[in-house]
């Protein structure tokens, strides 16, 4: 029947050529984003406005249900815990009083020494985790705040008291965070007890097998670093703020070169159940 209408046959490009054109396009985009470090641009903003609200909605429903089931399951536990915590609160209050006194004393002494450098208190913004990486290979996740809330690439992300990762991509209403356990991440860290520097690098294998991250290049000739020592971000890192807790040393061994040590760290953050994070709005300033 279709032949009855005499028309110039519509030109259809064979799939082979479409594939070639699209491949070329992909390769060009990959090269561009690799060399110029651009990511998405306006396309990303549009995608952000379309998908982020939906993800947020699903997440809200999910949290609602998990909260309800948790609530029913853990009520008795919580009551017990409450008692224990109450006694802890009393204990801590006493401790706090002592600390306040000591703080007061410290401030006085600092004034005397004219030391004005204290630990900086960072501006933070809270965000919800609304989606995780689509593949099983990488540990990145999407949070529901973006440039509209002042978030920018290279800002540090923490949860509780520990380091979670760093913002690697940002749109108007979302940001992608690469966790420190991601296979490509590495952070410059420091053992607080001895001030020795080390490199902390995420590994899919170690994380899946025993929930640890690896560290290497620790210079500890006097064998002072012990299992259980806390590791924080180092002052020499150019992206991470100084002094954020990464985790505790889990195992330690001397390398084959007999100079450096390496081992594993148990991170303080529970990456499996991460739901809310804080983004530090101060970026580490590096002299260029």
């Amino acid at each position, binding site marked *: 029947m279709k032949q009855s209408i005499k028309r110039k046959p519509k030109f259809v490009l064979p799939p082979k050529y479409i594939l070639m054109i*699209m491949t070329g396009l*992909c390769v060009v985009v*990959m090269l561009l*984003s690799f060399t110029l470090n651009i990511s998405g641009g306006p396309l990303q903003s549009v995608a952000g406005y379309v*998908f982020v609200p939906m993800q947020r909605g699903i997440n809200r429903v*999910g949290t609602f249900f998990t909260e309800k089931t948790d609530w029913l399951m853990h009520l008795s536990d919580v009551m017990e815990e409450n008692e224990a915590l109450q006694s802890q609160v009393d204990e801590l209050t006493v401790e706090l009083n002592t600390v306040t006194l000591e703080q007061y004393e410290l401030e006085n002494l600092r004034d005397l020494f004219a030391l004005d450098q204290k630990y900086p208190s960072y501006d933070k913004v809270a965000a919800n985790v609304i989606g995780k990486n689509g*593949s099983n290979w990488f540990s990145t996740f999407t949070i529901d705040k973006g440039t509209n809330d002042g978030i920018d690439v290279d800002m540090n992300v923490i949860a509780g008291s520990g380091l979670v990762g760093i913002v690697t991509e940002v749109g108007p209403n979302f940001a992608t965070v690469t966790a420190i356990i991601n*296979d490509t991440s590495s952070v410059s860290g420091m053992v607080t007890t001895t001030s020795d520097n080390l490199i902390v690098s995420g590994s899919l294998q170690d994380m899946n097998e025993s929930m640890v991250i690896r560290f290497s290049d620790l210079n500890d000739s006097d064998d002072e670093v012990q299992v259980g020592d806390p590791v924080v971000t180092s002052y020499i890192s150019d992206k991470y703020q100084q002094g954020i807790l990464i985790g505790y040393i889990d195992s330690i061994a001397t390398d084959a070169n007999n100079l450096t040590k390496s081992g594993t760290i148990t991170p303080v953050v529970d990456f499996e159940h991460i739901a809310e994070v804080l983004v530090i709005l101060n970026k580490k300033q590096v002299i260029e």
Partner: protein
Amino acid sequence: MRRKITLFIIITICYLLQTTLFRALAFASISPNIMIVVVSSFGFMRGKKEGLFIGFFTGLLLDLFSGSILGFYALLYMYIGYLNGYFRKLFYPEDIKLPMLLIAGSDVCYNLFIYFFLFLFRNRYDVRYYLMHVILPELVYTMVITIFLYFVILKINQRLEVIEKRSASKFV
């Protein structure tokens, strides 16, 4: 047009489920890859061209939110969609063996490519570990989901084809 909108909705729903629900239902931090099910099934149900475009847009979506190099997943999924298109002539809706086989093959190839380009190149040589702990678990989990998801996609596609045929005959 109807098909495009439907496809957009399918991809959106699958993406959202993949990044939220299935991540929450992960066993041993492995979750199924339902995006590959969509791309692969539309590839062998509808042919190379449609598979190619669905793969491209699905991959692009993952690229935009995953924080890696833009275009990598787009390229990978595009080829998966295109190559599945070669099996269109062998495809019969009643037979589930070929779709299962193709989706399984696509998932394994996809993961091997990711391993090869993003892990092996960074001196992660332990192929066996990644095979046993990432690729195979994902394959099994994906196959379980496929049994349900495939029929949903099949039904949607058949419905669309019926509507398209009807409106095509109306015009003539």
